[in-house]
């Protein structure tokens, strides 16, 4: 469903991704690990279409479409979701209103009829329960005054609402205590399905105790230097990145 071939990208003339190759099948969970500065966030930003980054080579196919030709909102409407490492605040705009707008645009893009208000609200209730999000959070302005944990939970809630086919979690575990981590991981696990794939970007093995990946890749200096299964993550936990990156 996602096929990345020799992807090269950089910023201000500096190459950060130096040829990434990655195949992700439907329903698979891939973890991408690596030391700080290896290019993990750059990869998620490039996939989501942030224009600060310049793609200098390679190709990315998403459900058969050339992803790099689509603008960020088209990618989202095609089913790509990014859970941000640092979710932004949008003062004065409630999460409910925000999601209503998003869903309306996505449905219009797909040629689906608009969602009725009562169906939308029913969906909000269901998904809130699924990700254990307090009702009051969704009626507050998007992320405004949210704690770090609430922000991350709100990202997972949005993911549940938008029902993507590919979700990229960018260091979702950073800044979370163990309880918050468990809640977030539970939410993700409930959303796993045979038609939904995940890319879990993380620096630490910890998150992978809760979200068990099918594949683990190690990113170093803009290249995937090693791939394996969940055992690889554990190995890294024991030995550190040192050996792999020497």
């Amino acid at each position, binding site marked *: 469903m996602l096929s990345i071939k020799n992807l090269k990208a950089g910023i201000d003339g500096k190459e950060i991704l130096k040829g990434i190759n990655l195949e992700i099948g439907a329903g698979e969970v891939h973890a991408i690990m690596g030391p700080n500065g290896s290019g993990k966030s750059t990869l998620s930003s490039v996939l989501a*279409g942030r224009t600060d980054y310049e793609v200098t080579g390679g190709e990315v196919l998403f459900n058969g479409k050339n992803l790099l030709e689509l603008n960020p*909102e088209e990618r989202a409407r095609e089913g790509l979701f990014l859970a941000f490492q640092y979710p932004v605040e949008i003062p004065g*705009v409630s999460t409910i209103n925000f999601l209503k707008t998003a869903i309306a645009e996505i449905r219009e893009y797909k040629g689906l009829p608009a969602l009725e208000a009562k169906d939308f609200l029913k969906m909000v209730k269901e998904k809130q329960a699924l990700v254990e999000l307090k009702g009051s959070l969704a009626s507050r302005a998007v992320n405004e005054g949210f704690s770090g944990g609430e922000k991350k939970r709100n990202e997972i809630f949005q993911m549940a609402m938008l029902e993507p086919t590919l979700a990229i979690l960018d260091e979702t575990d950073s800044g979370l205590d163990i309880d918050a981590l468990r809640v977030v991981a539970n939410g993700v696990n409930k959303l796993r399905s045979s038609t939904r794939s995940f890319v879990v970007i993380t620096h630490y093995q910890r998150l992978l105790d809760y979200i068990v990946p099918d594949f683990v890749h190690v990113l170093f200096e803009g290249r995937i230097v090693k791939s394996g299964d969940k055992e690889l993550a554990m190995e890294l936990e024991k030995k550190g990145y040192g050996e792999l990156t020497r």
Partner: protein
Amino acid sequence: MQKQNELIDQQIGGEYKYGWSSDIEMDTAPMGLSEEIVRFISKKKKEPDWMLEFRLKAYRHWLKMEEPKHWAHLDYPVIDFQKIIFYAAPKPKKELKSLDEVDPELLKTFEKLGISLEEQKRLSGVESRIAVDAVIDSVSVKTTFKETLAEKGIIFCSFSDAVQEHPDLIKRYMGSVVPGTDNYFAALNSAVFSDGSFCYIPKGVRCPMELSTYFRINAIGTGQFERTLIVADEGAYVSYLEGCTAPMRDENQLHAAIVEIVAHEKAEVKYSTVQNWYPGDVNGKGGIYNFVTKRGICLGDDSKISWTQVETGSAITWKYPSVILKGNNSVGEFYSVAVTNNMQQADTGTKMIHIGKNTRSTIVSKGISAGKSNNSYRGLVRINKGATRARNHSQCDSLLMGDRCGAHTFPYIEIKDKSAIVEHEATTSKIGEDQVFYCNQRGISTEKAIGLIVNGYCKEVLNQLPMEFAVEAQKLLAVSLEGSVG
């Protein structure tokens, strides 16, 4: 940044959607301004002598005044008052008895404005209604629901009718808040105003519907000089709405209005404006010069005046809706959203003059600048000696889109009483590319994202507007800023 500016250029497509003009037969004065013209206008309107005297006094004073060029943060060429037509009225075919007799072109004009009078009529009997006084090129052409209002003793009519039918009220209140000699544009208006609206709410009456005036400039080369006078007697309440549009014209047109509000003891007046005069094109050609004097006085104890404005139009806006807090415990409020795009300039704000004890004022100003526009907040909070325990809270926020626009805040604070508490907060932010990207990533287009973000930013102010108006204002904000972030 270069790239962002190009994108802004490409996308500034916030086109003015009200830029048609109507073919209505007009009755106009000769071009230019002189004592003759002032007399001509007064005569046209069959005014009593005291009214003519009021005009002449203002005119003679105006001759001695100088245009206020330097204090506001504005830049515009000298206005040639000899090139303006000071009176233009749709020619009445005959006395109008019912809606059916109104010029069909005129009715079409209103339909395009989204306020069909037919609609208004049909809505009679429905609970939430708006009574409309429509003013085209300075002349009030139709006031709806007059009879319904009359049952409660409410007077809502054109200013000219009021001069004829309620001379005592007009003599008592006209110029009592904004004297005919107040400032350059107020003096001009007092000399040449041709119509406007008058509203009187008697003691203890809560006006059952929103009262509304729609202003439209239509004829070429005309200025519009209307005045509004609202008087709320003891314990009365009224919510008043003002909407404005004008056709697209290459030359600049002048709008110099006066609004006066008087609130007696325990009375409350809410005045809301959605101003959408033609702002000129991308290069700053054409557009309305909007120089308006709006002032209210909380005359009695426990009275309240609240101004809410959403300003998206005009080439130049110069206005400071103010409240004189004379009565003890009186309350003044000012909620404002001012949007400037392309070459627009706005210098707007408020004055809160605290005279009575325990008086309170609140100022919330949200400026949004895009393109190469300039947006200034200018506000005065004055606490006079004896205004014990007066309080003011001011919040002035500026939002910048792109890096070629300007935002300025000029708070003037004069405190003559030590017991006063005055707080001023100001913030300037840029519309975040991060915010827009976040929306994009959820499938929301950049246009819609800006609409969402801006409306969220202005929420505190929009919440003050009556429901129907708030929806209109939200759409207007989105349209005015269409494509202004790359």
